[in-house]
Structure formats: C-alpha cells, structure tokens
C-alpha cells in the first residue's frame, strides 16, 4: 500500500461521507469509519513503524494534516446536526406559556397597613421614629394632656366610647385619636422629638360609606428648638408630594384644634385633575382635597409634658389612613376596609 495515496483517498472520500450524515449518531459512525482504528487512517498510523526511516517524517506529517482536516469536517458537521436535533427537541418540549397550569398564589397585606408603612417610611426618611400607645387609653392622655377642656364636646358620650373600667378619676376610653401617643411620648422622652404614631382610633359613629366606629390615624409630632409654621408646611408638602405624586401642591388654612395653636387644615391639590375637571370624581372640580388637621403644638401641651414653651416649639398633625387610601385609590366606601372580602384585599399587592 502507498500510505500517501491511502491518505489522499481517505481525505477525498471524507467530504461526501461527512456530508451524507443526517444525525448525530450517523456522524459518530462516520467519525469512527474515517478516524477509528480500522479506518484507512488507522491502518496508516499502525503502519508507520514499518515504513522506511526516510519516508516516515513525510508520511507522518501528511497523516497529521489529513487527520486534522477530517476532524474539522466532522466537528463542523456535528455542531450543525446537534443544533438541528436540539431545535427539534425544544420544539417538541414547549408548552403554552399563557396557560396558568401551575399556580402559586400569594397573599396581600391590608391596604391600610400598606399605606401606614408608606407614610411611616416617608417620615423615617426625615429622621422620625415610630411610637405606639394603647387603644384603651386614659381620658387624661386623650384629652387633658392635649389641652382639651373638661367641657369640650368631643368628650361627650355622643362622640367618645368610654369603658367600664378604671377609677372615677382615671376614666378609661377608647382613644378617639392617635394624639395621646404624643403626650405619652413627650412624658418619657427628652426633646428633640420627631415621631409618627400610627394606630387604631375609635369614635361613636355608625357605619356608612364614609364613617366607621373604628379607623386608623397617623399622628406626627416634631418638637425642637426653632420649629415654625414654615417647617410644618414644608414637611407636610414633602409628605404630600411623596405620597400623592411630585406635582402635588398643598395649602394650609386656619382651623381650630385644642392641642395646636396656630391650627390649620391641610388641603392637597387634586392629583387627578389639578382642579381642571369640573366633574372630577376625586375633587368634584374644587381642585383641593381636605387631607389632615395640623398646627403648632399648643404651649399647654408642651407644659403638660414638662417642656418649656418659651424655648421649644413644635408641630403636630393627624391624618386619617382610610381617607388617604380612599382618595388615592378612588374608593367610594370605607366599609371595604373592614369587610375582609378577599376580592377587595387582593387588589392591592
């Protein structure tokens, strides 16, 4: 046999053989036929030892050349065939991705708690802490410590739920506001005070579309040296923009609360229409939405807490969580919040 001729012949026949292969299995067989022990190349490889010494380098070099060339033909073909086979397998292995055959249901946090956390986070970002207090509360903290006169109508049984508990001098009620947390916090902490206090509050109200006997408020309180009405306005404007959107405007209008002086109501501009739509479902065209009561902490409240009102000043606000949620989400009935209908709860992820 002429090794060089054998090698040339092997190379010549390799092209068509490789081309004919149509599966990865076939190319494996072709590979073994072309490069295996019993292939012509294999025979030449075995015969190397028997060649004349002067022929050996030449034949060896040619053997390597041919081997590399055939390997590369096979490799390219195998990749091509592998890709075809993979594509066919994937095509067979597909499913309708729009079909929800496996479901992993999630629960939700209550919208009221989502809103509370959101508001809390806005104020935490301003360096506030979160304070808590009891719901069954002493009349002292709910009223007296907050500069509410003994004769204030809010103390009447028509407004406040009193409990059959406690000594006559220490009347216990279901707190009508989160403001008693202010009084408790100041009693046990030294200024500066920057807190928010979310929680449940109670009023003698019948359930209707806008009233619940039990609802949620977030109280805010800042007491420090040098806090002014401008600090209150800036802080609440920041809150309104973070909560309702960056274009939200606010206005303060004078109002009255026993525990603040000056007192104010905060209105926010309608985040839906900005006052441009006379039939707006949120603001009714007025352009402003009543949002919360606020003011500079009354000197009597500071004194009751043992703070010096000649040195310190502060501001406080109280916002209804249900109101925030209803306004922002366009809800028409406050009853949704206590009915625990999972269709309602699951809307708010």
């Amino acid at each position, binding site marked *: 046999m002429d090794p060089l001729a054998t090698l040339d012949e092997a190379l010549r026949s390799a092209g068509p053989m490789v081309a004919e292969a149509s599966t990865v299995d076939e190319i494996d067989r072709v590979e073994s036929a072309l490069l295996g022990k019993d292939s012509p190349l294999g025979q030449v490889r075995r015969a190397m030892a028997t060649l004349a010494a002067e022929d050996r380098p030449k034949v060896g070099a040619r053997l390597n050349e041919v081997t590399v060339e055939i390997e590369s033909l096979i490799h390219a073909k195998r990749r091509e065939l592998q890709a075809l086979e993979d594509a066919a397998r994937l095509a067979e292995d597909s499913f309708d991705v729009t079909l929800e055959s496996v479901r992993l249901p999630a629960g939700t946090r209550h919208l009221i708690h989502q809103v509370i956390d959101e508001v809390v986070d806005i104020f935490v970002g301003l*360096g506030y802490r979160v304070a808590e207090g009891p719901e069954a509360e002493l009349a002292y903290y709910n009223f007296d410590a907050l500069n509410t006169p003994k004769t204030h*109508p809010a103390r009447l049984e028509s407004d406040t739920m009193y409990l059959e508990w406690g000594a006559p001098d220490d009347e216990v009620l279901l707190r009508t506001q989160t403001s008693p947390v202010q009084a408790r916090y100041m009693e046990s902490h030294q200024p*500066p005070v920057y807190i928010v206090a979310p929680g449940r509050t109670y009023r003698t109200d019948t359930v209707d579309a806008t009233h619940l006997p039990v609802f949620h408020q977030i109280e805010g309180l800042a007491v420090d040296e040098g806090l002014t009405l401008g600090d209150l306005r800036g802080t609440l404007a920041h809150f309104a923009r973070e909560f309702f959107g960056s274009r939200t405007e606010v206005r303060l209008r004078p109002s009255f609360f026993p525990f603040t002086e000056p*007192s104010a109501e905060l209105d926010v501009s309608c985040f839906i229409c900005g006052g441009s739509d006379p039939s707006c479902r949120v603001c009714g065209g007025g352009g402003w939405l009543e949002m919360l009561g606020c003011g500079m902490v009354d000197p009597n409240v500071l004194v009751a807490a043992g703070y010096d009102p000649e040195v310190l000043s502060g501001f406080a606000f109280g916002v209804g969580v249900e109101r925030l949620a209803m306004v922002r989400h366009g809800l028409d009935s406050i009853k949704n919040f206590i009915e625990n209908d999972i269709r309602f709860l699951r809307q708010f992820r």
Partner: protein
Amino acid sequence: MKVSLRWLQEHIDLPTTDAAELAGVFTSIGLEVEGVEALEADWTGVFVGKVLEVAPHPDADRIRVCQVDIGAGPTQIVCGAWNFDAGVYVPVAVPGAVLPGDFEIGERTIRGVTSHGMICSERELGLGEDHAGILVLDGEEEPGRPFAELVELPDVVFDLAIGPNRPDAMSMVGLARDLAAYYDIEYRTPPDDLVTVPGDTELRVVIEDPTGCRRFVAREIRGVTVGRSPMWMRHRLAKAGMRPISNVVDVTNYVMLELGHPLHAFDADSISGNELAVRRASEGETLVTLDGEERRLLPDDLIIYDQDGPTSMSGTMGGERSEVGDETTRVIMEAASWDPPTIMYMSRRHGLRSEASLRFERGVDPELADRANRRASALVAQLSGGEVLEGAVDEIAAPWQPAVVELKMADVDRLLGPGLAADHVADILERLEMKVDRGDPMRVVVPTFRPDLTRPADLVEEVARIHGYDRFEARIPTGPAGGLTARQRRMRRITETLAGAGLSQALSLPFVGEPDLEKLGIEGLGLLTVKNPLREEESKLRPTMLPGLLNALRRNLSYGATGVHLFETGRVFLVDPDDEDPRLPSQPMRLAWVLHGPFGMSVDGRPSVESDGRVSLAVWRRLAETIGIEMRLVPGSAPGFHPGRTAAVEVAGEAIGHVGELHPEAARAFEIPGRVGIAELDYEPLLAEVPNVAGFTPSVYPHVDFDLSFRVSDDTLAVDLLRVTNAAAGELLESSWVFDEFRGPDGERAIAIRYRLRARDRTLTNDEVAPIRRAMIEAGAGIGADLRGA
C-alpha cells in the same frame, strides 16, 4: 352658616364680587367654605309697577282693568286679584317675560280689553306659596326697576363652616369685620336708632344662677301688631336657610344673623307674675318647647321660669306657653348672655341644636346683649307699629373684663419664624380691633367678642391668619436619628412572611358578640365593656381574634370564594390590669389566622393540599423559621380548637398560644363547611429580639444517608423520637426528617426517618457510620421505639 353676598355687601364694600375669589379669601382666613351657590331670579321681564288706577272691566265682574306705571307711563293690565287698590306697588311681568315653569307672558285680550302683561302673585314668581292675591310690595319703589333687585337677585350664598372657636364670625357684621381686617378696609354696622317712649317695663328679672347667666337684657314693646315681615327680610332669612314666621320672630332671627347675638321674644301677657327667673331645672319638671315637644327637664338644664313654672330653655329654645302669636300685642324682647358649656350640654342632651345654641355654645359677646336688644326692639317697633318702653331691664349677674395679653416678639418669631416686623404684627392686631400698646412685649387688649384669644399663641395665630399661612417659607426639618426599631422591623417581616405564604391580611372591628364566643365554646369570660355603645354589636371588646376572622371567612365563602386564607394582627382586650400601666385594662397584641380550602401551589387546578391543622402548623413553622424563633410544639387544646389537631406553642418556656384546626362543632356553629386551619398567638413574644445566627461554611465532603423505621405507640411523639435519635447521631448529623408515617392493620404505627451524616473534614467510612447507627437505634429503643423489621 349660609351667607348671602348681597346682604354681606350691605356691611362692607368688598374689592371683588367674584365668588371663587371670595371663597378663597374666606378659606385663607379660616372660614371654611363648604359650598357656594349662585342664585338667579327664576324669571325674566318682571318689573316694579305702580298701580295708578283700577277700574271695573266693562264686560266682566270678576276682573279689573288697571293702569300701571312700569317706568314709561300708564300701561293697561287686566287683573283678577282684588287685594289691592290704586297707589300700591306690584311686580309686573311684561310681554315676553318668562316666569317659573317656562310660563311665557304675552299680550292677551280678555273680553275685549287688551292686557299688556300680568301682575304677579308670590307663587307665580316662585317666591312662596301665597296665591290668595297678587304680591303687594311693602313700601314705595321706583317704577320700572327690575323686580329681582328687590329680592337681591342674582346673589351668591356661601355655606361657611365656622369653627368652634369663632363665635364672632357667626354673623354678617362679624364676617364683614374679619374681611375688613383681611383687606384692611372699613366695614359698617347697622344703625343704632332705637326710639323709646317714656315708661318702665313692669317685668322683673332674677338671675339665680350667675354662672349660667351673666347678663339679661329685656325690653318691652307695646302696641305690636303681629303680621308678616317685609319681603326683603323674609328673603334674606330664606337665603340664610331660616323660615320666615312673623314680623316679631323674624326680627329676632334677623338680628341674630346680622349681629350674632341670639334673641328671644316673649308674649309679655303670657309671662305670669311679671317675673322671669333664671335657675337650674328640678327633677321632674317639663316644658313644652316651641316645636310642640314636651321636654323632661334635667337638673343641669338652665331654665327661664315665670311664676307658673318653666317657660323657656335658655339659649336653646323657647316655650310654647309664652310664644309670640297672632294675638300678641305686648312683647318682651330678651337678649341674655348664657354660659357656653351649659348650653352645649343642654342642647345636646335634648337633641336640640338650634341656631341660637350653636352661637351660645361658642360664647356670645356679653357686651353685645344690649346692642342686639336695641336693634331688635327698634326693628319690631318699625315693622309692627309698636312702641318701645324707655325703662328696660339690664341685669348683670357676673361682670366681665376684656382679656389682656402680653405678646413678645419672641413668641411670634418662635412660632412663625423671624421676619415679621413688630409694627406689622401690631397693625394686624389693630385691624382685628385689638388695642395694642406697642413695645416688646406689646400689651394687647382683646375685644370681648373674641373669647378664644387669651394667650400669646392665640394672638400669634391671628397674626398668621391675616398675614397668610402659606406665606411663611417652607422648610423640611429632620430629626436627629430616625428609623424603625428592631421590633418594628420584625412586625413587617412577620406580615410580609405570612402574605408571602399566601395569607391575606384582614382588619376586623375589635368588637365581639357573646353568641360568637359561645360558638367557640368560650363562656363566662369577663369582657371589657363600652359604657355608651352606639349599637349592641359594638358594646363588648374582643378577647380573641378568632370570631372576626371566622365571620370574615364565612362571608367570603358565601360570596363563592375558594381558598380563603386570612391573617390579622391587632389588640384583644382583657379584664385584667395592664402590666405596664395598671390603670388601663390589659390589651395585648395578637396574631391569628384562618385557612380554608385549597392551599398553596396548584397544578392544573388541583391543589397540593386542602387547608387543615397540618397546613396551619406548616404556616407557623415557616413563620417561626423566617423570624428565627426558637419554639416548641406540644399537643394542646384551647376553646374552639380541635383537641387532637392542635399544638400549644411555647417560646422561651412561655405558652404563647395555639396553632391547629378549628373544632368541628365551632365550624358547624359558624356555618363553615370543611376543615379550617386556625391559630391565635401572642404577638409580643414573636417580636422579642433573637440572638444572631452563628453561621458556618458547609462541608464539601460526601454525605451518607440512611433510613430507620421505628415501631412506635400512638402516644409517642415524632418530635421526641427525632430528638433522641438526633442526639445519638452526634455532631456528624447534618439533617433528619420524617418521610413516612405508617399505620398497619393491627394498630401498628411506624415512623420512618431519613438521616444524613457528613463530616466537616473528611469522607465518612462505613466503619465510622455503623456504630453511630447502632447508637441511634438504641436511643430509639430507649423511649420504646424499636427498629421495625429488626
């Protein structure tokens, strides 16, 4: 309070009449605008006419032919009404006029006589119900003047919500005064033009309760003819939302709206003994009030008596017995200064909140009593033809002083920021009619119509209010160091974990009905009770979270829901003193859940598992692992829980609640079909700080797994078997878990556990594992669990 702009303009020349702009001004000075209503005349083409001549119709008996001057000489109008004669002034609808109800007026010929228009009745103009005759105007008017101007149309009515601190703003004059301060312009008060005749009233007034009644002014008006009040007054009252009644009663209401001081008119002849006495009521007394209701008086009620008994509820509502009626000829006009809290309590106790009580409970200026009385007496005399006796009663039982406040500029700067000049501050206070001695501090004498201003901070609010709340530079101060505490972060972690496990957070009203507690088998438990519940359902506070959640579950099922998984965190209320503040009842936070129906992942609509006690425990284990709580479960029972499917949970050696399944009887009572996984746990122990996890780097050496199946009795707990065998495995144990519980036909029970051992530093050999395995089998035997098949 409803405020007619046209009426208000009588007292102040406003720089604008734009309703929106004025609403903005009211708002900015703290007078909340609840509504703005534009009033238009409901007609066109109606003018004032002077009836020049009235002649019979040549061809009809029941109608007359009138010559009426409507500004351009005599116009012939045929009229069927007989309640007027030549010389009076009337409203005339000219041809082309449109009256309410799209009633168009044209020229008509009636039995040969042409009528160039129509003389209108009150009803035809939509101004009232009177249709007995045409509307005859009260005095002389200018012929041809648009009739709408006489009833001040068009007009704008502002509905203002006046705060509890602003009695001064509950009148036209008071509002004009506040607006005048805002605009820095003048305002006008009504004339003080009382004309009296010589003579003293015989009425005596005795104030027996000087706390309740500071001042009592009474004037007697004789020769009164009670009738209708003039049109302008009736229409102003109507715009203010008050019903016109008679020329005497309307005057009291009118002056109240005008000056802010409520008044009451007595029929003088109905006052027995010519004496009015003010004192608190006695138990058992009754009074029939003006609305015809018989009121049972209570000891704190402040009452005006005559010699026959109660005759009026002070500052709230008069009595029927001394009411001014058609026959009244002698009137006592009363203006008294009542104690605000007394009126507030009395009016609310009796559900009688009147325009008068709304003002008195805020505090009416005692200085104003005589001024208002003079104004009202003068008007009654003018409108009813009566004469006012010169000698009036003015009893002052408790004198008053204006408040004097020392205001330092430091007070202003501290609350409003530096930047307001002292002169500007003083100017604003003076515009609000305070007397200011300039200086620092400035000495400010507060007018008696502002009882709310007693302290520097109160004056600072006035300065801010007139200066403009929104004109102070906005700043955002920040606290020294904020953030959530570890406890607060754990609360969020817990609720997020439960939501991630498929539970939705619920919020129930924290009340409970006793029947719902009985359904859970809870009886005789003391409940915290609301003294004054609005409804029975809101009288008892919940001692457990479960009824609220179970009711929510049932409601959801009734709407067709499947897979209802709810959790709630909140307080329960117990009749024990609170640990931290023993003056309060204990009100611990709880965490609870109810799980019903398919739970977790589903495949092609087939759930992996139906909710039950085991699922409930799985939820709890997931939660405990997530928040890093070391806990122990032991079989337990609690009211409402299934006795064989409930674990008591212990954390740090304390029992903190139960996790398991709803008792079938309770499920039946709550009308919930199927099993319900439930839990109720004290929340605080879950929020306690936990030690940090001591971490390790996982071993890379191969593991050895083997299974052991132990034969156990029914009262052997899986957890105990794991505990002893794990302990025997020693430190090489990586994990162990029960993969099967087998029950044979003869009550045989077996628990199969897979153990995995792995060393940190080497590959384990069989020789090493064999003695460990033997030790574990012995440990099982030690608690009566023999190796199965051994």
